[in-house]
Structure formats: structure tokens, C-alpha cells
């Protein structure tokens, strides 16, 4: 959840289940506001959420991330794409 979006509960649950079954370390996040909000407002029942690495000193010239978090984000995105067809999306 962030200032502009509430992550779709089924999508978030699906991602967390993937993390746990595939051994991808994760944490729940409350963020500021991302492109997920625009996607979610495209139409009724568009499932949206945000994933990404923790950033220290965000929006500054000295932003820091940890490489392991980038790798975990990529791993989660790839794993999601491999399993996304299993989601029961309403027609």
C-alpha cells in the first residue's frame, strides 16, 4: 500500500506465496506512490501493486540500494512472469 494505491490483495498474496515457495526474501512495504496507481485506475478491477528494492536517501543524489535487493527484485519479477497465468483473473 502507498499514498496512491492499495495493492490488490489476491495479487499481493500470490507474490508472497511465490516468494515463500521459491525462497525469495521479501518484506511488506508501505511506500509513497508509484505508477501502480495509474495502472489501477485504468479500468475497474485492474490488479496492480508495486515491487522494488529498498532505497536509502531516496530522491537525493546519494540514493543507495543493495545489489542483493536488486537481484531479489529481478528474481521475483521473472518468477512472477513464469507463474502469472495461474492467477484467476476475471474476464
Amino acid at each position, binding site marked *: 500500500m502507498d499514498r496512491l494505491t492499495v495493492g490488490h490483495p489476491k495479487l499481493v498474496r500470490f507474490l508472497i506465496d511465490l516468494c515463500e515457495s521459491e525462497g525469495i526474501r521479501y518484506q511488506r512495504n508501505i511506500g509513497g506512490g508509484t505508477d*501502480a496507481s495509474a*495502472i489501477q485506475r485504468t479500468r475497474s478491477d485492474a490488479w496492480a501493486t508495486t515491487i*522494488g528494492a529498498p532505497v536509502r536517501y531516496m530522491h537525493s543524489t546519494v540514493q543507495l540500494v543493495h545489489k542483493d*535487493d536488486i537481484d531479489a527484485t529481478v528474481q521475483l519479477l521473472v518468477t512472477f512472469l513464469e507463474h502469472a497465468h495461474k492467477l484467476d483473473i476475471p474476464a
Partner: protein
Amino acid sequence: MSTTSGTKIGIYLDLGEYPSDYAAATSYRRPEGRRWADILEKARLAEALGFDSLWIPDHLIFANDEGRTEGFWECTSMLAALAASTEKVGRTAVDTYAVSTVQEKLGVRGMPTAAFAIEPDIGMALDGSDTAGAHIAEHEATCELGERVPVSG
């Protein structure tokens, strides 16, 4: 070519398009020309042989150890072309669109036009999460760097 263990096997396609005098001018003996037709032929051969994915280099203008500049095909355009020209290599069971937007200092104004054009069933934003300098102890306790990928929800 997926194995019984679930391991998938891909193949690397070199995209370097070298000058006609490249082999003579350098110590390397490498193919001199690599056109779209050549790359597509290899990609389709890889697909026919059962490879699961295609991998290409991310270079635009590349200088080798001898300081000579080599030309490369731009990688994201090439991946899109290969995806459109092959049947199953690297395909997932869902259609996937990658969108990049200019966001910072303008809120999320970049995404709506793309979202309305695509009409996605599922949208996944890739963004950073806060571990901001304020309230350091609180953020360090809940959002450790190098520990986990955050999921918003």
C-alpha cells in the same frame, strides 16, 4: 530443452556488426557482418533445437581492448524483434508489456497514457521503497537494505 529438474537452457546470440576490415585490423578472427537476417536465422534455429531462451549483449557502441569501436544492434529493439519473429522462445503464458515512464518531480503522470493503451489485467510497478534518512531507527527496523524485496499491499 527444459530438463527434468526444471532447469532451462538458453543460447547467446552475438550482435556485433564488425567493419569489413575488422579481422585484418585486429588480432581477433571474428565474423565481419551480422545482419538481421543472420540473427533471425540463428534465433529460429535455436528455437527449432529446443532452446528455452535467447540472450543478447547490452552494448550500443563498444570499444574493444585495442580501442577499435564495434557496432552493436540496440538490445531492447532486438529483443522485441526476436520475440515478434519467433513462436515460443522465451515466451510466458501471458502477454507481457514493459513500459518505462518519466516520473520524478511530475508525480505519476507518465503512466496513464501507456496504461490506457495497453488495458492490462495486471500491472506491476517497479520502484524503490523508502528507507529514508528520517526516523532512521524505525526504517532500519522494518526495511533492511540487502535483506528482502518489498511487496506493496
